[in-house]
């Protein structure tokens, strides 16, 4: 097949690859840049001119971040909230999506309409805070999980997928005596892994990156601090230190530049590790769609 390609096709391919390479580089380079900065000595990094390799290699920046004794607990909280949130969110959103995808459900349009409203209009900061407080969710771990259990966007993504599944699948299960809950948990979820993994990924990244709910609801319970929140504190500390600087001699140089880079690398890597495990389902999703009808 390769032999039969015309010169035009080859040129087209070359252009395509070059463009893709440029696109890939522009997305990856910021991370490489942060990695270089984080691995370089702080006072040297402040002189600029770092592009490809660290000039003065050091792990001091990482050591500085790990000096914080609150990080271990915060990391545990973050992992817990990410895992629990992801599992429950996928399950709950899927459940609603399954119901909305059933043509026999009378109010599906109306419910969808109500759900859509939540995508465009939010409760606002203060009403939401009051709601959480009156529900007794402030300063509890549950506030990381419950408010985000159902997201309209995830529901619609999953509903669209479920609607494409053959009706016969559900019908035959019903004939075999399975109720809807069993159909959902034992059949639908398992044949919908592409969409499940997509939503899981969104949910996991969202939960991992979240810190605002910690700031808003859980600031009075130190034990509930999540990783992003602790890191935010650290950046705040470093930045105020920097403005207090002045010209005192021999001071240990701590700069927001390197600390921020280090923190970004540290929080990005764990969530990056999730991607390879879920990627195969994305690919599968595409072929699955292609083979239908």
């Amino acid at each position: 097949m390769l032999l039969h390609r015309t010169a035009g096709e080859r040129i087209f391919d070359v252009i395509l690859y070059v463009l893709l390479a440029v696109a890939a580089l522009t997305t990856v380079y910021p991370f490489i840049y942060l990695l270089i900065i984080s691995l370089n000595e702080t006072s040297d990094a402040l002189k600029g001119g770092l592009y490809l390799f660290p000039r003065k290699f050091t792990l001091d920046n990482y050591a500085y971040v790990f000096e914080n004794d609150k990080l271990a607990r915060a990391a545990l909280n973050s992992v817990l909230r990410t895992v629990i949130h992801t599992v429950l969110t996928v399950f709950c959103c899927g459940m609603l999506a399954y119901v909305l995808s059933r043509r026999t459900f009378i109010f599906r349009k109306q419910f969808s309409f109500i759900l859509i409203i939540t995508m465009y209009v939010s409760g606002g900061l203060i009403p939401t805070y009051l709601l959480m407080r009156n529900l007794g969710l402030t300063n509890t771990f549950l506030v990381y999980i419950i408010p985000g259990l159902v997201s309209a966007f995830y529901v619609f993504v999953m509903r669209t997928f479920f609607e494409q599944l053959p009706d016969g699948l559900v019908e035959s299960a019903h004939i075999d005596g399975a109720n809807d809950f069993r159909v959902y948990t034992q059949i639908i979820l398992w044949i919908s892994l592409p969409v499940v993994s997509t939503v899981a990924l969104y949910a996991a990244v969202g939960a991992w990156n979240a810190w605002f709910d910690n700031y808003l609801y859980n600031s009075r319970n130190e034990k509930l601090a999540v990783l992003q929140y602790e890191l935010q504190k650290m950046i705040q500390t470093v930045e105020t230190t920097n403005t207090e600087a002045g010209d005192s001699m021999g001071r240990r140089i701590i700069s927001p530049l390197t600390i921020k880079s280090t923190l970004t690398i540290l929080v990005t890597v764990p969530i990056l590790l999730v991607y390879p495990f879920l990627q195969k389902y994305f690919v599968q999703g595409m072929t699955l769609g292609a083979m239908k009808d």
Partner: protein
Amino acid sequence: MWKKSKLKLLSVVLLTASMLVTACSKNNNGSGSSQSASPSPTASGTASASASADPSPSAPAEKQPFTFTMNTDNPNMNWSSDVAKEITKRTGATIKWDIITGDFRTKMNVWLAAGDYPEVINIHDNTLQSYIQAKAVLDLTDLIKEHAPNIMKAYHNDLSLLQDSNDGKIYGLLQPPTDKVVDLTQKGWIAIQSAVLKDAGYPQIKTLDDVRKIVADYMKKNPEIGGGKTIGFSNFGEANQLFNNFDSAARQYAGFANTSGYYVDDQWNARYRFFEPGYTDFFKFLNQINKEGLFDPESLVQTQDQFTTKCNQGRVLVIFGGGMDCNASLESNNMADHSYVWFDIVAPGKTKTVATPEKEARRGGEMWLSITKNAKDPVRIIEFYDDMFKLENQILVGWGFEGKHYTIENGKRVVTDWLVDQYKTHPDTFWEDVGLGYARQMSTNYGAGFTLSDGDFAMWQFSESWIQKTTSPVVVETLAKYGAKTQADLLVKGVERKYPRTAGKGTDEMKKFNTEAIAEWGKTLPKFILEKDPSKLDGIWQGLEKTLKDKGLDKVNETATKIFQDAAKEQNL
């Protein structure tokens, strides 16, 4: 069909609406109960007030332990330092911190809406106004008069500084006034690298021409520093920083006092200083040295980060307009010989006017310390703050322990080497670790150079000993060549003049005009500095004057004049 589905939709909407209403009514019940509950703390507060009023004559009863909550924006705030323990020992009080990480004002407003604020709040002026309107903060007038003799004394029995401009009540504390200000942290506006001065043999620096000459010589000898091109005069001027840095330099060179954007004459007539004689002198100088290649044209656009990078490389010979130098970073990169020393230069024939330093807190600028409705025992809290206004406790907060944080030499408090060392090894959490970070929360966050009633500095970081012990040897050496001990010694002695306080009095119209004026100024300045033909310069600046006059310059000047004259009359100046 269509109608039917519409009907269904309607029913669904109604259903949800009814659910919402019930939910809301529950909500209301909730907040209603909390509201009905909220008077009870005040009730208990008054009850305990009357209770504490009984044992108040017997002093030891006051030292009973109690805890109150307070917000802070400092993520490392603690109550475990030795200083905190000593405060508890002396007053019985323990503070439980409510730390706000992230947007401070948003959280304060959310708290206000929910009634969730801590017992004592440290709060910005404009947010305090919202709290006052919501009746969330207590009027302290009577509390202070009845329970706080030390606070009364610190304010010289005159609490007018604290009074709210609308109703005359007192909703918060500010740092108390001082009798004497000795600000050693002041410095000039033009920083020159020590290496340049040394190379030229430490000549007198009296005029900008003196600076130009030594910079030109040095650049000729050292066209490159650390592999990069040597830069003469630089600073950063991205967006509104252009005005901040360049205007500041022009103002100080012309000898004008720092009275916001205005020049104020002897009759308290206020005018935008842009068009006062001498204002453009510094820009003319920049125009001239730009042609000689001594000016860094990127100054007009670069960000602070971009500038700091150049500075850290040791390539910038002169920084003008103020802001920060990069001495600490230069030192850690083994380029300490390039450290900066700040000079003060006033145009020949001009007299420098200096505004007499304020001896009290800047209203509107400083943060307030207020007691909220949530306070369980406001009397006890005000008594605690009253305790903290005692001299020995102010020394504790501002200086720590004698022997550990400071020693007394010749009757003056002097920081110990231990303290300096702590600062150098971990500057990030230094304040909290050694326990010297409570000043703002105790309302004794004294301004630079403020002194206590014993005549010595209120805070360690403004003292002579701290400044001397933390200035790098190169800077000390250079200063010595000019007969100076601190950067403040290099300041040109000016004529002191007391200006009326006008903070917060500007009208919206003035603010709007100011934004436009600065934008126009920012468009004109680069043209002015980069102009090749010096004969056109005055014309360019007159163009700016005409533009601003069309926008209502004269009217704004009139309004400003009235504000200054009224304030002067009010303050008996």
